[in-house]
C-alpha cells in the first residue's frame, strides 16, 4: 500500500461522486422527455418502428416487448456467430465457433453478462465483434436502462398503469446516452493509443530478431461501449489488460469512470424522477459504503505477497497477473469496480488474486449486483432490496410498510422475494451441479480449493450477469491456437447459458411486475409514523438487508474456496 495508491482511490471516488448528479440529471431529462436535440433522427425512427411516444404500455406489454426483442437478439447473434466463415472483415480467416460456445456467447451478450468462453482475437472476426457482439453491447445495456426507467415511472406514477413505451425508451437511451458517450470515450481511448483498424495482423521482427505478431482490429469503438454499457466482453482475451485496449494509466482511470458513471448516475436519475433527490442519494450512500469497504480490502490484500510468492522467498506485493502501468492500486480498484458494477471487464488476472482479494469480487457479485450493478439492472435490483428493507422494518415497528407513500402489500413482497432469491438459489444449484458431476470437472484448471473457487466464481458471475472470470475455468478448447478443430465443453456452455438467461430475466420481470403493481396506487401523505427511506438510518437498514439476504446465503460456499486460501499458507 502506498500513499499514492490511496490518493488515487480517493480521487476516483471524488470524481465519481461529482459526476453522479450531472450525468444522472441529464439522464432524468432524457427519460422525462425533456431532451429533444436529436428529434430529427428520433421521429423517423419511431415511424420506422411503428411506435409513438404517446402510446404507453402497461408492465405486461412492456415486458412482452423486452422479451421479444431479447429473444430475437439471441437468435440473430447466434446466427452471426455460426456463419462467421462467410463474413467480410475477417482477415485472419477465422471459422465459426462451435454451436455450444456460440449459444453461450449469444446468451451472454444479450443478457449484458459478456461471459467469454472464447478468446476474442483467436476466435472472432472483426465483423462478429463489430456487428454481432458490440451491437448487443449497445442493445443489452439500453434494455437494462430502459427497464429501470420504466420501473421508476411505475414507482412514481400516481395515475394509470402505463410505465412508458419500450421502443421509445430504447431509442432514446441509445440516441441520447449510449451512442454519444461511446463516440467521445472511443476518441479519448484512441488518443491514448487504443487500436482502431481493419488491418491484417502485423508480424514484425523484434529488436533481437524474433518474430512477434501484433493483433489488430476496430478496438476503441468496441471498448467504449464495453465499459459504458457495463458489458465487459473484451476485444482481446486478456480484456482491458491488453495495452491495445487500455494503453495507459490515464486510459485506465477513464475506463474505470466510464464503467461506473451510468450506474452511479442512475441513482440521481431515480431521485429526480420520484421527486426527491434525497431518495437517490440514500441509495448512492448504501452503494458507496459497501463499495469503499470492498476496494479497501482488495487493495490491502493485494499489497502483500501470496503464499506461493512467500514460498519462493519473495516479499513484494502480489504483482502476479497484474500489469505494471496499473500497479496494485489501479488493478485493485478496477477489480472492485468491475465486479460491483456487473461489468466484468478486467485489467488483471482475477484468478491470480490473493485468497481474500478474490473473495471480495465474488462477494460483490453475490449481493446480486446491486452495489452500482449493471446499467439499469443494478438499480432496479437495488430497489427490490429497498422494498424488502421497508417491509422488514415495517414488521419490526408493526406498521403497514410504505415506499414513496405507496402501501407495500403481499403481492409486491412475493414478487420482490422472487426477484431477490431466485438468482442466489440458481447460483448455488448450478455450482453444485458443476462440482458434483464428472461433466463439470473437465472445465476446472487449478487443483484444490482454487478449483472450487473457479467453479463458484463461474456460476456466480454468469448468474449475476457479471462476466468476469477466474479464467482457468474453461468451456472451449482451442488446441491449435486457431479455432479449427476446437471443441466446446457442452455441459459448461449450456449450464452457463441457462444460468445467464435466468439471472437476467427473473429479476427483470419481477421488478417490472412490482412497478406495474405499484403504478397508479394511491399515495398517502407522510405522517409522523412513516418510515422514511431517505435517512442515514434507512441506509444502514438497506446495507444490512443486502448483507443478510444475499451475501449470507453464500458464506458456506465462500468458506470452502477463497476464505480457506486466505487463511492458510499451505500450497495445493
Amino acid at each position, binding site marked *: 500500500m502506498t500513499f499514492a495508491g490511496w490518493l488515487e482511490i480517493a480521487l476516483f471516488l471524488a470524481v465519481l461522486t461529482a459526476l453522479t448528479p450531472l450525468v444522472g440529471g441529464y439522464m432524468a431529462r432524457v427519460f422525462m422527455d425533456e431532451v429533444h436535440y436529436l428529434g430529427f433522427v428520433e421521429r423517423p425512427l419511431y415511424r420506422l418502428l411503428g411506435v409513438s411516444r404517446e402510446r404507453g404500455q402497461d408492465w405486461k406489454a412492456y415486458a412482452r416487448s423486452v422479451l421479444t426483442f431479447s429473444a430475437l437478439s439471441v437468435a440473430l447473434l447466434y446466427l452471426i456467430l455460426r456463419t462467421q466463415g462467410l463474413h467480410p472483415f475477417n482477415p485472419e480467416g477465422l471459422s465459426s465457433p462451435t454451436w455450444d460456445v456460440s449459444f453461450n456467447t449469444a446468451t451472454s451478450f444479450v443478457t449484458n453478462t459478456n461471459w467469454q468462453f472464447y478468446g476474442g482475437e483467436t476466435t472472432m472476426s472483426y465483423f462478429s465483434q463489430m456487428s454481432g457482439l458490440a451491437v448487443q453491447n449497445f442493445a443489452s445495456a439500453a434494455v437494462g436502462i430502459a427497464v429501470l426507467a420504466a420501473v421508476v415511472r411505475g414507482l412514481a406514477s400516481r395515475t394509470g398503469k402505463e410505465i412508458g413505451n419500450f421502443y421509445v425508451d430504447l431509442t432514446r437511451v441509445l440516441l441520447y446516452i449510449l451512442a454519444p458517450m461511446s463516440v467521445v470515450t472511443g476518441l479519448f481511448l484512441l488518443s491514448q493509443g487504443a487500436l482502431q483498424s481493419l488491418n491484417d495482423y502485423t508480424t514484425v521482427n523484434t529488436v533481437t530478431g524474433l518474430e512477434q505478431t501484433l493483433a489488430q482490429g476496430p478496438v476503441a469503438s468496441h471498448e467504449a461501449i464495453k465499459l459504458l454499457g457495463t458489458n465487459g466482453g473484451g476485444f482481446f482475451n486478456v480484456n482491458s489488460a491488453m495495452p491495445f485496449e487500455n494503453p495507459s494509466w490515464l486510459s485506465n482511470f477513464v475506463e474505470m469512470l466510464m464503467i461506473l458513471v451510468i450506474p452511479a448516475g442512475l441513482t440521481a436519475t431515480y431521485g429526480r424522477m420520484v421527486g426527491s433527490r434525497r431518495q437517490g442519494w440514500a441509495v448512492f450512500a448504501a452503494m458507496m459504503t459497501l463499495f469503499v469497504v470492498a476496494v479497501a480490502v482488495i487493495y490491502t490484500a493485494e499489497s502483500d505477497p501470496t503464499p*506461493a510468492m512467500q514460498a519462493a522467498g519473495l516479499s513484494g506485493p502480489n504483482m502476479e497477473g497484474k500489469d505494471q502501468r496499473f500497479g496494485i492500486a489501479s488493478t485493485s480498484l478496477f477489480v472492485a469496480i468491475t465486479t460491483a458494477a456487473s461489468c466484468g471487464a478486467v485489467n488483471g488476472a482475477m*484468478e491470480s488474486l490473493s485468497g481474500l482479494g478474490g473473495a471480495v469480487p465474488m462477494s460483490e457479485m453475490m449481493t446480486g449486483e446491486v452495489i452500482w450493478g449493471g446499467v439499469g439492472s443494478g438499480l432496479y435490483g437495488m430497489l427490490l432490496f429497498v422494498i424488502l428493507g421497508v417491509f422488514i422494518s415495517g414488521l419490526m415497528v408493526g406498521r403497514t410498510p410504505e415506499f414513496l407513500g405507496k402501501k407495500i402489500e403481499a403481492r409486491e413482497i412475493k414478487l420482490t422475494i422472487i426477484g431477490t432469491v431466485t438468482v442466489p438459489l440458481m447460483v448455488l444449484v448450478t455450482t453444485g451441479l458443476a462440482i458434483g458431476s464428472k461433466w463439470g470437472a473437465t472445465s476446472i484448471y487449478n487443483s484444490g480449493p482454487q478449483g472450487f473457487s473457479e467453479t463458484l466464481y463461474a456460476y456466480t458471475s454468469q448468474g449475476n450477469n457479471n462476466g468476469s472470470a477466474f479464467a482457468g475455468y474453461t468451456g472451449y478448447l482451442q488446441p491449435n491456437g486457431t479455432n479449427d478443430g476446437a471443441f466446446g465443453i457442452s455441459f459448461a456452455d449450456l449450464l452457463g447459458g441457462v444460468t445467464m438467461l435466468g439471472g437476467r430475466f427473473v429479476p427483470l420481470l419481477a421488478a417490472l411486475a412490482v412497478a406495474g403493481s405499484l403504478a397508479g396506487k394511491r399515495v398517502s401523505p407522510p405522517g409522523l409514523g412513516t418510515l422514511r427511506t431517505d435517512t442515514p438510518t434507512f441506509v444502514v437498514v438497506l446495507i444490512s438487508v443486502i448483507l443478510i439476504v444475499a451475501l449470507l446465503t453464500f458464506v458456506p460456499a465462500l468458506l470452502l474456496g477463497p476464505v480457506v486460501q486466505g487463511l492458510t499458507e499451505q500450497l495445493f
Partner: protein
Amino acid sequence: MREIKTAAIALVALTLVLGLAYPLAMTGVGQVVFGNAADGSLVKRDGKVVGSKLIGQDFSRDTGRKDEEGEPILEADLNYFQSRPSATGYSASATFFNNLGPNQQDLADALKANVKTYLDRERPTTPSLRAGTIPSDAVTTSASGVDPQISEDNARIQANRVARRRGLALRRVLALVDDHTSHPLFGLGGDGVVNVLELNLALDEESSR
C-alpha cells in the same frame, strides 16, 4: 406478430447504425486523425518496424538449439533490459492469463525458477541482491503477457548489468532510465514505470555514439 416485426426492424437498424456505421466511422477518424496510434503505435529502428511501444517483447536471442519438444531455445540478450516474465511467450495475437491461483504449488515452482533466473542474471553485477529484495514485477508474470513496462526499481538493478556489458558509464545508463520513467496519478507521483522497448532503443543509440 406485430411485436416480432418491430423487434426485427429495431435489430436491423441497430446492426446497420451501431454495428457498421459507428465502428467504420470511428476507424476512418482513427486512421486519419491518430494514424500510427490507431495501427498499434509501431516503433521503427533504421526504417524497419521492430515492435509496438505499447507491447512488451522478448529481448532474447535464438540460440539455434531446440528443446525436447522441438521449440527453439532462447537466451536473454544481456546487453538489453529484460521484460517481465510472460506466460504466453510475449504473444500479442493469442493472449491469455497465467491463471495459477495464489496457493498453487505450480505457481510457487514457477516463481522459484524465475527468482533463480533473475538472481543468476543480476547478482554478478548487483551482489547485494536476494530473493526478498527482488521487485516483485521482475519475477511474476504480467496480466497481458505483453506488459511493455517494468518497475523503476527493477530497471535500476538491471542497469548495473547493462552498463557493465556495454561498457557504458552507469551514470549514463541511469540517466536513460530516468528519461524513460513515467508516473501514475497524471504523472505526478507513485511508483515509476519504465518502457523497456523505448529504453533499449535509446540504449542502442547511446552505444553507437
